[in-house]
């Protein structure tokens, strides 16, 4: 497979082998999920480093996530934010596109911005988390060396840890199905459980997925997941092993399916042979 892309950067760009070597040393939930979803998509995103314009949905999710982080951080410092302060945080986060411009359709931005703020209001109202409750950790990066299992280092950032529970935020266009969402997010939740157990030297009380649903009347759906089982940990380790082996073999074949409709690398994929 041809992988040469000219780099305008002054420093020499890393070779494919160097990038793959780096990707094999540290594994995150997003990398592993991308690889498992479609190896060619993983290749375009993480090995070739192709970038695409930020979607409206991603921008809304990022802004909402940023405000919830500020809300939790303030609770952690026992200086809770008022609704007005939260709105100021949201306005600031909305303007920050992180250097990646968003492609808006006519009139779309105002609608999406209103939706984003309604999601935050909904969360504050429906999560039943008191502003005075102090979290254990907020947006904390953690890593675990799994060499004793013959595996690489696992890395991740935990959105929120509260009362021994790992909480992860998601925005969604549709109401999630409780059983399916637990399965669909198992790689991520298992990775977070492994990271938590190593960092705290104890098992998590449980894991919660907090879905903010962008329906006409936004709602919060909390999915409670029990602590990771031994079987789930074994499954995770097998998946990581498969990831390492796949990268070793440069096995980046596509996985054509229904999910391709929304893939940002659809055109690149069609040219692959």
């Amino acid at each position: 497979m041809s992988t040469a892309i000219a780099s305008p950067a002054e420093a020499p760009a890393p070779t494919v082998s160097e990038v793959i070597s780096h990707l094999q040393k540290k594994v995150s939930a997003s990398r592993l999920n991308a690889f498992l979803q479609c190896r060619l998509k993983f290749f375009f995103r993480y090995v070739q480093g192709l970038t695409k314009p930020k979607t409206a949905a991603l921008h809304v999710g990022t802004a909402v996530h940023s405000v919830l982080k500020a809300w939790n951080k303030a609770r952690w410092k026992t200086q809770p934010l008022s609704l007005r302060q939260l709105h100021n945080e949201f306005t600031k986060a909305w303007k920050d596109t992180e250097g990646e411009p968003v492609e808006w359709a006519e009139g779309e931005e105002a609608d999406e911005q209103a939706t984003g703020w309604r999601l935050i209001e909904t969360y504050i109202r429906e999560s039943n988390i008191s502003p005075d409750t102090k979290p254990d950790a907020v947006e904390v990066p953690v890593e675990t060396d799994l060499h004793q299992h013959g595996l690489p280092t696992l890395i991740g950032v935990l959105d929120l840890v509260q009362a021994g529970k790992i909480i992860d935020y998601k925005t969604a266009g549709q109401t999630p199905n409780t059983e399916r969402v637990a399965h669909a997010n198992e790689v991520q939740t298992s990775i977070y459980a492994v990271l938590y157990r190593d960092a705290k030297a104890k098992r998590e009380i449980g894991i919660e997925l907090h879905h903010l649903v962008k329906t006409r009347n936004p709602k919060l759906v909390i999915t409670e997941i029990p602590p990771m089982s031994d079987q789930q940990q074994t499954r995770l380790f097998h998946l990581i092993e498969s990831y390492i082996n796949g990268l070793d073999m440069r096995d980046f074949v596509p996985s054509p399916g229904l999910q391709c409709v929304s893939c940002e690398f659809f055109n690149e994929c069609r040219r692959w042979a």
Partner: protein
Amino acid sequence: MAAQKAGELYQLLQTAVDGEIQHVGWMPNSETYGMNNRPSSNGHPSNGSNGNGNGNHRAAASAPNNGDRWNMTDGQRGLVLRVINENNLDKNEVEGMAQQLFGVGVKELDKMQASQLIEELLEKVGKKPRGQRRWSRQPTRT
């Protein structure tokens, strides 16, 4: 004379035996023995409290503050000290920060608390916290 000689020899023997009894040699830690490296269902050792971060060994996570012993990983300890030294931060101020945010001193922070403290220190000195860093999608070359 013979009785006196026998008494001396007995005393010498007793001293030697006492010395051996007092020097017990290696003994397993009664709190942790048998708890680490238990094989899991897949034959791998389980991911218990003996894991470490950044490829560095770490003291027992639940160990009390014990002199110069730090609960965080060696890598985290090095990073905390480097941020303090390179930015001329007041160690007492950092200690106070840990007490205020976590209710314990810096040396007693566990791995997750240490990571959170490092985020706070980096933010304090104007560096982008690690949690906000993204994988650089630099194009590759052959």
